[in-house]
C-alpha cells in the first residue's frame, strides 16, 4: 500500500553505517537530497568523546581558538555530537542567497558554519578567559564542570524550553492537578495487592474459588 507523505516523514529513518552526518537531520528533505540512499562519500574521522566527558552544552558562552573569528566569544545554539560540531550564534559566518526563484535573486543572509569542538573552549566566569574544563563531583554529590586553571565552577546554562513554557510562571488549567495534590502522600505500605485493596474499598466480595489449572 502506498505510504502517505505524513507517514513517510514520521517513519523511523534507517541510516547506513558509513552515513556522513551533516547539519541537517537525517529525516529532513534537505538531508535526503544531499545524502540519498546509495550515496557514498569519503570517510570523515571523528574523535571519539565519551558522553560523560562532553563539556560544552547548548546555551553556553564559548570562545573560538582557531579559524576566521579567532578570539571572539559567542553563545552555542546547536551541538552535533556525531561530528563533534558546535554552531555559535552569528560567528564563523559565510553569506548565501535563500529563497531564490526564477525572477527574484533571493535574500542575502549570513549563515553560521559549524566549528569543531577542538577549536572551541569554555569561558571561566571569574576572569572571562578560555580554559580547559573537567567534570568533577562536589561535596553534595552533584557533577559540575570545573575549570582546570582556576578551579572555578562553571554553572549549567539556562536554556528556554522548546515549547516556550517557563516553569515559574505556569498557571494550572482545569484538568491539571494542583501542586499540593500531586505532592500529597497517600501511600501506606501494606501486604495487600492493588487488586485486593481496591476490592475492599469498592465492597466487592469474591467468594468463588479458582478451578484447578495446570501450568507446564
Amino acid at each position, binding site marked *: 500500500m502506498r505510504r502517505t507523505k505524513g507517514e513517510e516523514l514520521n517513519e523511523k529513518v534507517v541510516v547506513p553505517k558509513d552515513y556522513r552526518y551533516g547539519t541537517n537531520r537525517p529525516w529532513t528533505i534537505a538531508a535526503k537530497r544531499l545524502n540519498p540512499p546509495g550515496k557514498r562519500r569519503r570517510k570523515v574521522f571523528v574523535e571519539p*568523546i565519551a558522553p560523560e566527558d562532553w563539556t560544552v552544552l547548548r546555551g553556553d558562552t564559548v570562545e573560538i581558538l582557531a579559524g576566521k573569528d579567532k578570539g571572539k566569544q559567542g553563545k552555542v545554539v546547536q551541538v552535533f555530537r556525531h561530528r563533534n560540531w558546535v554552531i555559535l550564534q552569528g560567528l564563523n559566518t559565510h553569506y548565501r542567497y535563500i529563497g531564490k526563484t526564477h525572477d527574484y535573486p533571493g535574500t542575502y543572509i549570513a549563515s553560521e558554519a559549524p566549528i569543531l569542538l577542538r577549536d572551541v573552549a569554555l569561558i571561566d566566569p571569574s576572569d572571562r578567559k578560555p580554559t580547559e574544563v573537567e567534570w568533577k563531583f562536589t561535596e553534595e554529590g552533584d557533577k559540575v564542570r570545573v575549570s582546570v586553571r582556576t578551579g572555578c565552577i562553571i554553572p549549567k546554562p539556562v536554556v528556554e524550553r522548546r515549547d516556550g513554557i517557563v516553569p515559574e510562571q505556569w498557571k494550572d488549567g482545569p484538568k491539571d492537578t494542583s501542586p499540593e495534590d500531586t*505532592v500529597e502522600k*497517600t501511600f501506606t505500605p501494606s*501486604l495487600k495487592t492493588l487488586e485486593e*485493596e481496591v476490592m475492599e474499598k469498592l465492597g466487592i466480595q469474591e*467468594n*468463588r474459588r479458582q478451578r484447578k489449572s*495446570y501450568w*507446564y
Partner: protein
Amino acid sequence: MPNNVYTLKNYRRRRRRRKMAASSMAGRVLTLCKQFQNVFRISSGINAKNAAVNLAKHYSHLYSPISSVSQYRTLHTTISRRGLDEFFDFPENWGEETVKSGAPWSAKHLRTKSNEDLHKLWYVLLKEKNMLLTLEQESKRQRVPMPSPERLRKVERSLIRLETVAKERETTLRLLQTGQEKGRPGAWRRNVLGYIYWYRFKEYAIPWYMNTRYMRKRFYTPKFVEPHIRLRIEKYLRDKYRKTNLKKRTLAKLKERFPHMKVPSS
C-alpha cells in the same frame, strides 16, 4: 484404572452442563450487555452500599428497571455525569489551535499515591486518552491539524508509568512472600535445534500427560543435530573475534590521527 472423571470426554460433557445452568440463571438476572454477565453472576450479595446507594436512588430511572433482585450493581462509581460528552473536550476548547496542558505524571509522584488513588487515576487518564483519540480521528476526517497532539503522548507516558509503579509494587510483594521475582513460572529447556532457552509455562485445564498436542513437542536435541551445533559455535566465535579485531584496528587508526584522544573505556 483411575476414575474416569478426568478423561477429556467427560470434561467436555461437564463443561456443556455448566454452560446450560449459567444461561438459565442469566435469564433471571439483568442482562445489560454481554461483558457484564460475569459481574452479575457473582453468588454472594453485593451490597450496593457506600456512594453507589444514594446515586442509585436518584439515577435508577436512567437504567432499565431492576426488578427486586438483591444482586445488582450500579455502573457509575464517579461523580461526573456527563455521559457521552466525556468523549469530547470542554466546549470552550472547541476550534482552538492549541490547548494548554501541564506535564505528565512522573513515576516519582505516582509512587507516593495509594493503590486506590492509582486505580482512580488510571480511569481518569483512560477517559482523557479516549477523548484525545476521538479528537485525533475527527481532525483526520476534517483534514485539519489536531490541536496540541503532545497531550496524547503525555497521557500515554503517564499510563505507562502508572503501570510500571503498579507492577513494581506487585513484584516487591511477590518477592517478599514467595522469593520469586517473575509471576509466570517457566523452566530452562532445550529445543530441537540445540538451543537452551527459557520456556514460559502456559495455563491448561488438563494435566500434561493428557495433553496430546503438548506430548508431541520435543524438548530434546536428536543425535544427528550435534555436529551442526559445534559448527554454529565456531561460526559465532569467528564472528566475535572479527568484531573485536575490527574495533582494535579502528581505535589504532583513530589514535594515529588524534594522538591526544582519550581511549573510550567500553
